[in-house]
């Protein structure tokens, strides 16, 4: 799998329920062999879908994993060649692991009891 840069809007340690209302994001790089590197968080001054789209593009993100997102922004990011995996529920770390294992799809609900053992 080619190296990918991932952005996940956060609410605490979970994927934020809403793309446009997320107060912070986590960025990470998934290497060719599935290792997760360069994880860092960005706190947003104001939650806003427009600002978040700007962050996605400025960070040259390949994949966004999020909760609910308005169709307008989904279409915009898709047009900008960003893969959007939406309606995901669960802890962001588990989401990253599943993405690295190519086992994440839109609408996935990850429960704490189903987390990956490493």
């Amino acid at each position, binding site marked *: 799998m080619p190296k990918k840069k991932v952005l996940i809007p956060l609410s605490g340690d979970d994927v934020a329920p809403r793309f446009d*209302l997320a107060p912070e994001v986590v960025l990470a790089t998934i290497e060719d062999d599935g290792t997760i590197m360069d994880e860092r968080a960005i706190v947003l001054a104001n*939650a806003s879908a427009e600002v978040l789209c700007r962050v996605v593009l400025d960070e040259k993100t390949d994949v966004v994993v999020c909760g*609910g*997102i308005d*169709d307008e922004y989904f279409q915009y990011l898709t*047009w900008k060649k960003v893969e959007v995996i*939406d309606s995901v*529920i669960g802890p962001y770390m588990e989401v990253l692991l599943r993405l690295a294992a190519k086992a994440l799809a839109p609408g996935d609900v990850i429960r704490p009891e189903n987390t990956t053992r490493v």
Partner: protein
Amino acid sequence: MSTLPLVRGLYNKPIGLLNLLNEIPLGLAILDTEKRIVAINRTLETLTGFASEQVEGIRCCFVLRSNLCAHECPLERVDQLSGALSVQGNIVNKSRQRLQVRITTSVIENGDGQVLGFLEAVEIMSAVSDRPDAGVESLALKGLVGSSSQIQRIFQILPVIALTDSSVLITGQTGTGKDLVAETIHRLSDRAKGPFIKVNCGALPESLLESELFGYEKGAFTGAVTSKPGRFRMAHNGVLYLTEIGDLPLSLQVKLLSFLDDKTVHPLGSSRTYTVDVRVIAATHRNLEEMVKKEKFRQDLLFRLNVIRLHLPPLAERGTDVRILLDHFLKLFCVRFGKMLKGFSQDAHKILLDYSYPGNVRELRNIVEYAVNFCDGQLIHTRHLPQYITAPTETFENLTSEDIANKAQRRDLLDETGDVMPPSLDWAAVEKRLILEAMTKARGRRGKAAALLGWGRSTLWRKMKKLGIQGK
């Protein structure tokens, strides 16, 4: 929930609680004291796009996805003493639609007064945006504005149409208000508390349109990674509004006709059928009778949709309504953009009254929006109006074909075949011109151009993409 709790004592035999809740036309969620989902009913499944068993044990905010969850969660404010708490907000569902909702929350307690959890009722308000000035648009009959005899006739019959449950076919040129009339019918009807689901039949390819309308089961086709209920099921107890019905492919016209007959939906890849209670409103700018003659539209479907026919006149036939609409939109945009304008100059007013508005009310609205944006004084002058309406007008009959071609080239009115289109038919060129002027004024900076037009960047992007404007 694999074992459904049973309710005893209502009837001779116990009844499953979820079976009971599924018959209530409100979205309902039962939560525990940790705000985690115990169960949701079918209406809330349809509203959110999540199945009940999929979200058991998940915190409510991740399922409902309301703008209230972050800072104004009603579950934090409700208690045994306060009674039910009702708040308005919006949610974003799995179909990426933003829905305006009213959420009513109450505490569930046992006979000893011990709090066991919460009950949330979610009621859809409308599918419009939550702009702060939305209330300004609600003049006259729920947003329709006018005093001409044609519009007054529509005002008079809309409430009557709303109270029937028959299918409605709305016809009229683009920009005449078909969407607004459809929503008004819904809001005036007994189905006002139910959903209003809109589908543009011309916006999606045939294969996607079928799955959008009728839903699909997980694995029904490549890419179907989850089940989706479909727009018919989402519109249960409400209205399904099919705009551009003339663009519905013939194969789907058959399925729509079948639904209108037996009110059942067969999702792709599913062996189950679902009975839904939906009122269908359809709209088109096309001449469906002509399409029937050319065998592009089924006559039997036209008969079924044409139970109540409502035709919206073009703005050019509405006489004094142009003056009223100019004032209405001037007031609306002054509020939205925070400007204190007194009105139009005499010259500008004359130009606006004399203009033909081939794009009808939508074009008039956009012209006023443009003018309010560009106005830097207290009166809108001619220089604040889009150039294409202030240029000297000439009728096509006076011009040679070479003159017409030259004029059309300057005004970007040539279509793909190189033939000249009369200005009155090209609303896309109108919008294109507005965007190009804004981009010129903003010197190519899309963010500033979007602000000038009163749009978000993504709205500008979407329109530029649609109109084929290269903006790099």
